[in-house]
């Protein structure tokens, strides 16, 4: 400022002050922030870059080492004679084809060169010609067209000059016209294709040998070959630092998890330990303190799951949760913050991810925790109060069917009216044609009504099935007057767990008055009837029966650690303290029997008077199930899943006597409960029974149609967390303080997992600190679960979400094919605890199998049959008949229909038609059978064949009838296999053949010997010394035997059985000995 004087500049606060310092500082700061922003952009927001660098380092080091080890192993292998032999063969084969190979390759090289020249030339020529032809096609007039066509001709005449290489290395020059050019070009193409296929043909043998050599190396070394490892290494070397993303276009799913989890799909087994080892050994990867990276680099622990759910189609987050798109931090990627609704499942709950799509499956492969959760949910009676789609929905379905029936009846009435109307219109129609139309209309409606009748019939059948399927978790409390000692009831109600630690009955938080009131109501509300008196039985025999008939598959005896048996049903250790002997006998004989039938229409139990009124005997069972008053289908069975074991009355008495001895204290020592007859108390009790929802699990008079009192849980996992009532614990949960005031190990627990876990551990927890009148307190009882069971249930609930909650709905597992049959079947298999006795899944153990009594050689023979592959084994029609009546007899019920030698009894479950259908389809689907099953045509045996077959059948090296039952009681004392007479009806021929050839492959450890036949050309021949007839016979021995078995008559079997020596020990010893002999000779 030239006119300013110096003194002014120094005095004026604005003009006189320089700001350069401040400006410089601010500019530098801004520049620094720019640098920071750039760093943040490249690294701060992209932490995966560092992960990837580290991974490449570690992985390369790991692969280097693995390659060395593998190379050493392969080196050692190369010295073996087999390898050398193979190598030599390979070299010889290569030498043998070398001249021809060279010839072909030389010719191919020339052709390749010539083609390169010709292709360009021909493409140009063709382009010009086709363009001209097009012009001719659209030419304005005939004259012009002709002119253009002339030009085409001229172009085609060429010449097209080509300089083509010839074998001696020189070039020949050819002037082509268009046609010759084309033909030469196509000829060369064809020749090339021919030579290539010729080359492959010539090399065929070498390729085979090569494959064989490689296979030999792979078979004899562990893991990947050096070549494969080197491939991985070169991939790692060429690694591109970049976001690794799965994008499933159909569902618009984007998962970038593999940007950090780089080892997930690597074909090697990589664990945290692997990486630590690699890092600690130095090499290229220096040890790092950040062990989180090691956890990130592991390979997927269950490759089978990845195979079923290909990540390219399913991504990662639909199963695991988390935010697949987020890459800026671990917390964000895992979605473990309050604004991401679908956080990564915790390690112990990760199977919740399975439930999301597999909600319709009762049993999900690879998900033991989830399966346990589902099992508990049903078994512990959660479903009694909480509706859950798919679980025990017979009552709802029954209502649905009832509505459908009403709708169809209305429709029928409508049609009837319309028919009348049409006929009247026809009568009044002015002309014949119109009248005919009306009459035809009436006729059609009549036919449609007949269709409706068919539908109605099906619906009635369904209703009948559903009524039979309706089960309750707890016992029928209408019968307690006949069943229980009254003084035991209050003891039980006070704390069921104290009396029977493993019971499924939960503990309600009742005060003493409530206990008295409920006991009084139940006692007074029970039916007055009694059961017939029974004489004492033999407890020793009862014990033996209890332990061998299969009771232990569901029930256990003994407390705590010493309990032996299944946990599916009650532990019977103290049953003698509570039960009434006469009732117990009847129950053992047939648990489904009721004192009175229940009529759903009148909503009451029918009395003998109801029957007497109509002059009918008081008789009700599955054959007599119509209500005498209104013809409605009655509930004639108790709602228990316990089946009938088809015992005799004597057996039942023995078992009951044995069970009555199971007690820890004298029943007389229980305090008398006089208040049970107090009327006022009972009134109060009635209110409480409704309040606590007892009828959710028990059948109680007057409460038969009571609904569920709890929240529906079908989609509880997707309920907004704000709707879960943490009550006064909300702030505790948000700050990671447990209800007891201690810090939560997981930190904040204000989420679904936290809510469920606390609620299950203590259902009243969210009443903590609340001031409420008793009846407004939380009603959920204490479910008697261990921490592991809480985890299982939590996992199940966490995965129970609305379809598409955090994952695309396309992924829902709702199959319509065979897999649906499997899905449906599991619900029934688990409901009746079939797996208590049978193995159905590969790798699964039945309860009986694990009991000490079934571990001895004799015990193993007593194990119930393995059902893996049963669908391929059994004729489905037969299976349906068998499931309906496992005795396979209307009169002789005290036996097993197929395996009389088994002590354990296949019970009669009184399955409904629908259940039987579902089970048959289930087994068929499990064994990949098509439906319906049509038996293949039988080829009858000729006389010669029959003779040969008979010789084989009774061959001393493998006398079939030594182990297989014949129905003769004396013979059958020592057998351990089913009767052949059943085969024709029961078995599928193809399976029978496969079974005879290698039974141990189907059922490891089976008593049936393997190696009975050996392969000879294209047929199977008996392995033992051949009888004379068989030596001449040119057919397949195994097939012959199978046909013979399917033709076997009772008479023939009886005749042959006489020839087979039978001795108690000899039978099994000889049988197994022979098996080993045969295997050896084979």
């Amino acid at each position: 400022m030239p006119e300013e004087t110096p003194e002014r500049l120094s005095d004026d606060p604005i003009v006189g002050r320089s700001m350069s310092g401040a400006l410089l500082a601010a500019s530098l700061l801004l520049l620094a922030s720019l640098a920071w922003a750039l760093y943040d952009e490249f690294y701060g927001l992209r932490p995966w870059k560092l992960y990837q660098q580290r991974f490449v380092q570690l992985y390369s080091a790991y692969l280097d080492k693995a390659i060395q080890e593998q190379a050493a192993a392969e080196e050692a292998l190369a010295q073996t004679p087999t390898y050398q032999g193979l190598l030599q063969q390979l070299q010889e084969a290569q030498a043998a084809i070398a001249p021809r190979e060279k010839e072909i390759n030389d010719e191919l090289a020339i052709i390749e060169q010539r083609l390169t020249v010709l292709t360009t030339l021909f493409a140009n020529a063709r382009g010009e010609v086709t363009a001209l032809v097009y012009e001719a096609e659209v030419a304005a007039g005939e004259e012009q067209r002709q002119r253009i066509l002339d030009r085409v001709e001229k172009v085609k005449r060429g010449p097209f000059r080509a300089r083509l290489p010839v074998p001696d290395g020189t070039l020949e020059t050819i002037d082509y016209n268009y046609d010759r050019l084309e033909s030469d070009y196509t000829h060369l193409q064809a020749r090339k294709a021919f030579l290539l296929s010729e080359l492959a043909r010539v090399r065929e043998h070498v390729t085979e040998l090569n494959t064989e050599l490689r296979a030999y190396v792979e078979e004899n070394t562990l893991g990947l070959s050096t070549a494969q490892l080197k491939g991985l290494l070169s991939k790692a070397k060429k690694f591109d630092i970049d976001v690794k993303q799965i994008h499933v276009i159909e569902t618009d799913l984007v998962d970038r998890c593999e940007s950090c989890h780089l080892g997930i799909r690597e074909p090697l087994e990589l664990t945290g330990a692997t990486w630590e080892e690699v890092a600690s050994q130095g090499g290229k990867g220096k040890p790092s303190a950040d062990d989180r990276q090691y956890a990130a680099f592991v390979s997927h622990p269950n490759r089978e799951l990845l195979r079923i759910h290909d990540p390219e189609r399913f991504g990662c987050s639909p199963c695991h949760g988390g935010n697949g798109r987020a890459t800026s931090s671990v917390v964000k990627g895992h979605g473990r913050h309050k604004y991401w609704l679908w956080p990564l499942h915790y390690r112990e709950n990760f199977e919740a991810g399975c439930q999301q799509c597999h909600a319709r499956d009762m049993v999900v492969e690879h998900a033991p925790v989830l399966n346990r959760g589902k099992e508990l949910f049903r078994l512990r009676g959660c479903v009694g109060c909480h509706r859950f789609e798919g679980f025990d929905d017979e009552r709802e379905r029954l209502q649905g069917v009832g509505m459908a029936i009403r709708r169809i009846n209305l429709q029928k009435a409508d049609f009837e009216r319309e028919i009348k109307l049409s006929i009247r219109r026809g009568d009044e129609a002015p002309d014949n044609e119109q009248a005919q139309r009306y009459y035809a209309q009436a006729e059609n409606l009549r036919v449609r009504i007949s269709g409706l009748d068919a539908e109605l019939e099906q619906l009635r059948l369904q209703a009948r099935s559903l009524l039979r399927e309706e089960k309750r978790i707890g016992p029928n409390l209408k019968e307690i007057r006949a069943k229980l000692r009254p003084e035991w009831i209050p003891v039980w109600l006070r704390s069921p767990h104290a009396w029977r630690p493993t019971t499924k009955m939960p503990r309600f938080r009742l005060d003493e008055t409530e206990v008295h009131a409920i006991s009084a109501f139940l006692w007074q509300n029970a039916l007055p009837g009694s059961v017939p008196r029974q004489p004492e039985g033999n407890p020793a025999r009862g014990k033996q029966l209890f332990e061998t008939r299969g009771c232990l598959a569901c029930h256990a005896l003994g407390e705590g650690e010493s309990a032996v048996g299944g946990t599916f049903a009650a532990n019977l250790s103290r049953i003698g303290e509570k039960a009434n002997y006469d009732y117990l006998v009847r129950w053992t004989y047939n648990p489904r029997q009721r004192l009175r039938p229940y009529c759903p229409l009148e909503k009451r139990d029918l009395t003998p008077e109801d029957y007497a009124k109509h002059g009918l005997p008081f008789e009700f069972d599955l054959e007599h199930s119509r209500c005498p008053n209104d013809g409605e289908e009655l509930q004639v069975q108790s709602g228990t899943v316990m089946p009938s074991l088809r015992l005799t009355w004597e057996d039942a008495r023995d078992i009951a006597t044995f069970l009555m001895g199971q007690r820890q204290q004298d029943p007389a020592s229980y305090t008398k409960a006089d208040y049970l007859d107090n009327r006022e108390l009972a009134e109060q009790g009635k209110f409480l029974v409704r309040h606590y929802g007892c009828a959710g699990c028990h059948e109680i008079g007057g409460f038969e149609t009571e609904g569920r009192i709890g929240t529906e849980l079908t989609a509880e996992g997707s309920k907004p967390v704000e709707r879960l009532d943490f009550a006064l614990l909300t702030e505790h949960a948000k700050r990671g303080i447990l209800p007891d005031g201690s810090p939560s190990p997981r930190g904040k627990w204000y989420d679904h997992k936290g809510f469920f876990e606390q609620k299950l551990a203590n259902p009243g927890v969210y009443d903590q600190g609340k001031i409420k009148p008793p009846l407004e307190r939380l009603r959920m009882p204490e479910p008697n679960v261990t921490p592991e069971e809480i985890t299982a249930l939590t996992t199940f609930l966490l995965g129970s979400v609305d379809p598409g909650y955090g994952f695309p709905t396309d992924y829902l597992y709702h199959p319509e094919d065979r897999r649906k049959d499997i899905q449906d079947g599991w619900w029934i298999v688990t409901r009746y605890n079939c797996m208590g006795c049978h193995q159905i899944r590969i790798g699964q153990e039945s309860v009986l199998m694990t009991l000490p009594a079934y571990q001895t050689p004799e015990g193993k023979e007593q194990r119930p049959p393995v059902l893996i592959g049963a669908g391929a084994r059994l004729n489905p029609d037969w299976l349906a008949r068998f499931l309906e009546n496992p005795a396979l007899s209307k009169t002789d019920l005290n036996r097993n229909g197929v395996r009389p030698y088994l002590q354990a009894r296949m019970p009669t479950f009184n399955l409904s038609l629908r259940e039987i259908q579902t089970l048959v389809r289930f087994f068929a689907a499990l064994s990949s059978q098509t439906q319906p099953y049509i038996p293949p045509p039988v080829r009858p045996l000729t006389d010669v064949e029959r003779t040969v077959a008979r010789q084989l059948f009774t061959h001393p090296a493998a006398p079939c009838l030594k182990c297989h039952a014949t129905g003769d009681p004396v013979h059958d004392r020592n057998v351990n296999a089913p009767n052949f007479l059943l085969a024709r009806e029961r078995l599928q021929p193809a399976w029978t053949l496969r079974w005879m050839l290698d039974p141990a492959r189907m059922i490891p450890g089976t008593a049936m010997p393997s190696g009975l036949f050996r392969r000879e050309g294209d047929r199977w021949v008996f392995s033992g010394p051949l009888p004379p007839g068989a030596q001449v016979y040119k057919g397949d021995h195994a097939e012959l035997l199978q046909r013979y078995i399917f033709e076997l008559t009772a008479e023939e079997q009886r005749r042959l059985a006489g020839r087979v020596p039978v001795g108690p020990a000899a039978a099994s010893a000889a049988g197994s000995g022979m098996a080993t002999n045969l295997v050896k000779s084979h």
Partner: protein
Amino acid sequence: MDWHQLWEITSAPDNIPIVALLFLVPFYAWYGLRQALENDRLVAQLEKDPAMAKTHHRKTQPWKPGWSREVHVWPYLMRIEFLAALIVTFILMVWSITLNAPLEEPANPNLTMNPAKAPWYFLGLQEMLVYFDPWIAGVLMPTLIIIGLMVIPYIDTNPLGNGYYTFRQRPIAILSFCFGFLGLWVLMIIIGTFIRGPGWMWFWPGQTWDHNRLVFEVNRDLHEIWPFSAVIPQTSWLAKGLFGGAVVALYYLLAGLAVHKVFVLNEFTRKIYRRMGLVQYLTVQFFFVTMLGLPVKMLLRLLFRIKYVWVTPWFNI
């Protein structure tokens, strides 16, 4: 004292501007006023010194010997503004690097958040909704605020105070700003941020925002309160309307008188008053009285639980 709760509120990324506001607004108010008072002292010196008044022809402006009489925009203003721009850009850069946008979960129409708060700059409006009908708090008042700001050049008859800080030369303008912006707008934003918790209930700082909290409060209209309830037929719209209208009219009268008292307080204010035409003065009166109505209504509601003063079938005040 729930420190955790307090920390939750102050550390929420959403509330950063408000926490900053808490310190920056008082600081700049103080800083500006300090400068203003300093200048006022200089002007007073100038007025007292006739000699200097001669050399310095504009005695209403702060000036000292040795100071430049005029300061040019370029470079003296521009360089300061440039510096400010640099510093603000720097702050924004650091802010945007360190804090992410406070995005929450996907919106769920079946589940609204609680408390549901407007963006911080609208919290004053949201707070007003507690005291007035939505139509008045949400439409009428904002419109009046905007119109009020627009008319300032037309009603401001005071020519002093351009280009420098001063309090003495613009007392009414500065006090109106302090009251209307700092006292009402900023305060309401702070209330909305720190005080209003779940259910838009009043939580003192340090009180836990408990979603289960229950309070018993009954708000009643003025005419439902004794002694008015004894006189006014509670079912007659006409009686209620006339009563409420009369109360509001009375308020306007009394408040107008009070505002007038301010305008005739001393010689200086009277000078400003005299310069205004009738329309200008009435406009000023209307806006002042209406602005004053807000805290009056707030106090009525918060202290006496009065819901509305004037109830009609069409609007409530």
